[in-house]
């Protein structure tokens, strides 16, 4: 018997009991929809982490001032300005594995343009900062050495700041006031989106670190403390080794005796992110696994209905055998019926899953990422469920003896 005929027979048998077929399919529909939606949600979370990694840059370490112990009382991180601009220059100069070491000094305040204003963070940075933190200049230009040496009053605006102050207008060349100091906007930064902690990374103004120190903070000390040093390690370098080199260089520069605690704190951010990526990947798997359970339950539903169907149609099976159906014809007839049931359910489930993902994305505002392979996986799984759970009833049908099946009441 050919496949077209088998499928037609299967469809007719399923049509005869529309309600029953629909209810049986529902298990598969829900299972497949759940798998697709869950994978879409998981993949969305994963994609977000990946995007954050990209925006942060790989191979990134952050050097922060450490705690100091004053009279037995340990102060918190950054309790003293133990890091200076000079440390950054030394790291850059002396450790070959470092591509960029960028000192940054954070400040905050009001930015004013014409009659609009915005409260934001501004960072005093060096040209290396762009490289180290993966900032891309969207329009205008970045900082150059003369800006730094001359403490030029120039600024680059993050996307959020630019939008809030200028709307759609081009900010480049405009004059703004930062804590009442006039600055010229020389460029804007490409959008980065949210940080790992959900902060808006684009709500920022970058100015030369020397300008922040001398024109805004008006501190003229020789120490030149900084809030953080972002260190980008060259591709292919061993992060751990570079970390050790930086630590020993700083201990030496800060004259820390052996056995004494570091007065700085070196954090390997990409490790944190990698761990987070891994955990979101596991989360995706977990969600898919939980969703698969409902697919399994749907499969059991199919098996149940197929068993009922075989019993109900015993006489039909007997007749088919009497007119020449071989055991394998009966087997394939019922198997095709089960797989047809599962596949129709699978296709409807895909539709529901896509719709569900779309709804979740719109109503809950979650990021979902639809993957073609998850759709294929779900359909393949549905078909497999049909074969697996359809096989036992089909085999039962095919093993009936023709005379007994014909006499069955």
């Amino acid at each position, binding site marked *: 018997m050919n496949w077209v005929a088998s499928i037609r027979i299967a469809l007719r048998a399923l049509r005869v009991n529309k309600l029953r077929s629909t209810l049986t399919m529902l298990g598969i529909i829900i299972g497949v929809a759940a798998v697709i939606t869950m994978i879409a949600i998981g993949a969305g979370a994963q994609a977000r982490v990946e995007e954050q990694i990209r925006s942060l840059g790989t191979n990134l370490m952050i050097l922060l001032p450490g705690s100091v112990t004053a009279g037995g009382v340990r102060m918190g991180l950054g309790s003293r300005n133990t890091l200076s601009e000079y440390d950054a220059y030394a790291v850059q100069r002396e450790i070959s594995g470092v591509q960029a070491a960028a000192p940054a000094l954070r400040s905050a305040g009001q930015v004013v343009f014409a009659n609009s204003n915005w409260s934001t963070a501004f960072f005093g940075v060096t040209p290396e900062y762009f490289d180290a933190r993966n900032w891309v200049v969207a329009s205008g230009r970045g900082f150059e050495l003369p800006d730094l040496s001359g403490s030029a009053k120039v600024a680059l605006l993050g996307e959020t700041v630019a939008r809030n102050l200028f709307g759609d207008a081009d900010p480049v060349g405009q004059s703004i006031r930062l804590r009442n100091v006039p600055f010229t906007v020389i460029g804007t930064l490409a959008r980065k989106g949210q940080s790992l902690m959900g902060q808006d990374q684009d709500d920022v103004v970058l100015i030369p670190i020397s300008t922040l120190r001398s024109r805004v903070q008006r501190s003229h000390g020789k120490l030149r403390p900084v809030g953080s040093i972002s260190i980008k390690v060259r591709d292919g370098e061993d992060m751990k080794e570079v970390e050790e080199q930086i630590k020993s260089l700083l201990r030496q520069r800060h004259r820390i005796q052996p056995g004494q605690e570091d007065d700085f704190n070196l954090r390997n951010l990409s490790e944190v992110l990698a761990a987070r990526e891994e955990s979101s990947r596991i989360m995706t798997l977990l969600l898919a696994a939980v969703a698969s359970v409902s697919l399994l339950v749907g499969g059991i539903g199919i098996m149940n209905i197929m068993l009922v169907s075989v019993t109900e149609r015993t006489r*039909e099976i*007997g*007749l088919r055998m009497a*007119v*020449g*159906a071989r*055991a394998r014809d009966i087997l394939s007839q019922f198997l095709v019926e089960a797989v047809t049931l599962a596949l129709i359910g699978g296709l409807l489930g895909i539709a529901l899953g896509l719709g569900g993902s779309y709804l979740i994305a719109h109503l809950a505002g979650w990021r979902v990422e639809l993957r073609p392979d998850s759709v294929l996986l779900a359909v393949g799984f549905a078909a497999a469920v049909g074969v697996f759970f359809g096989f036992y009833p089909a085999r039962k049908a095919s093993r009936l003896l023709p005379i007994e099946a014909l006499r069955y009441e």
Partner: protein
Amino acid sequence: MTDPLIVVRDLAKEYRMESYTVAALRGVSLDIAAGEFVAVMGPSGSGKSTLMNLLGCLDTPTGGEYRLAGEKVSELSGDALAATRNRRIGFVFQNFNLLARTSAIENVELPLLYSPCPAEARRQRATARLAEVGLAERAHHQPSQLSGGQQQRVAIARALVNDPVLILADEPTGALDTRTSFELMGLLQQLNRGGMTVVLVTHEHDIATFASRIIGFRDGHMVADQRVAQPADAQAMLRELDRAAA
């Protein structure tokens, strides 16, 4: 001299129950030539149904030999038996055994689904057979829309569709009234006159009189085998019935 169509030698069938065995057929030997119209009679439990099942390749004997058209059927495996049923035998059952919610034409096509036959040829042959039994214009009716006699004629068309060498009819008139029974027997006689071998199981004497040979069974043995020189003519009986009614 060619072999008879059906050669049965010492055919036996035992059913094993839990603690005892039941001998349903105790060594039956029988020849049926092509073109015969045989009625098998006997009370229930006499073994006539068992013989039918064995002749129909629906069951395998526990002893003896059965050759159908020269083929040693008693030695065939399940798939080969299915093929034999498909190509050589047409079944007619007491309760018609048509597929519900399936049109007459599709019911007739059923045996062709299990033999290598392209779809168009399938439809053509089924249509021709339905026309032969006088149901051409009912091709797309479902069994529930047909009378008992019409349903049984669909079943006969189904039995004929794959050009079998043998029609096995198991109490074909059991569910029909007298008039419809005569109509049906007329159809079988007509087929037999065309050369078809017909073996019929019945417990009604009236029905058996239409056959050219009557075989009696009792307790698993063949107890009678008589040729009927002048079988009753179902068409004539039908005309008589109509006259009596008028």
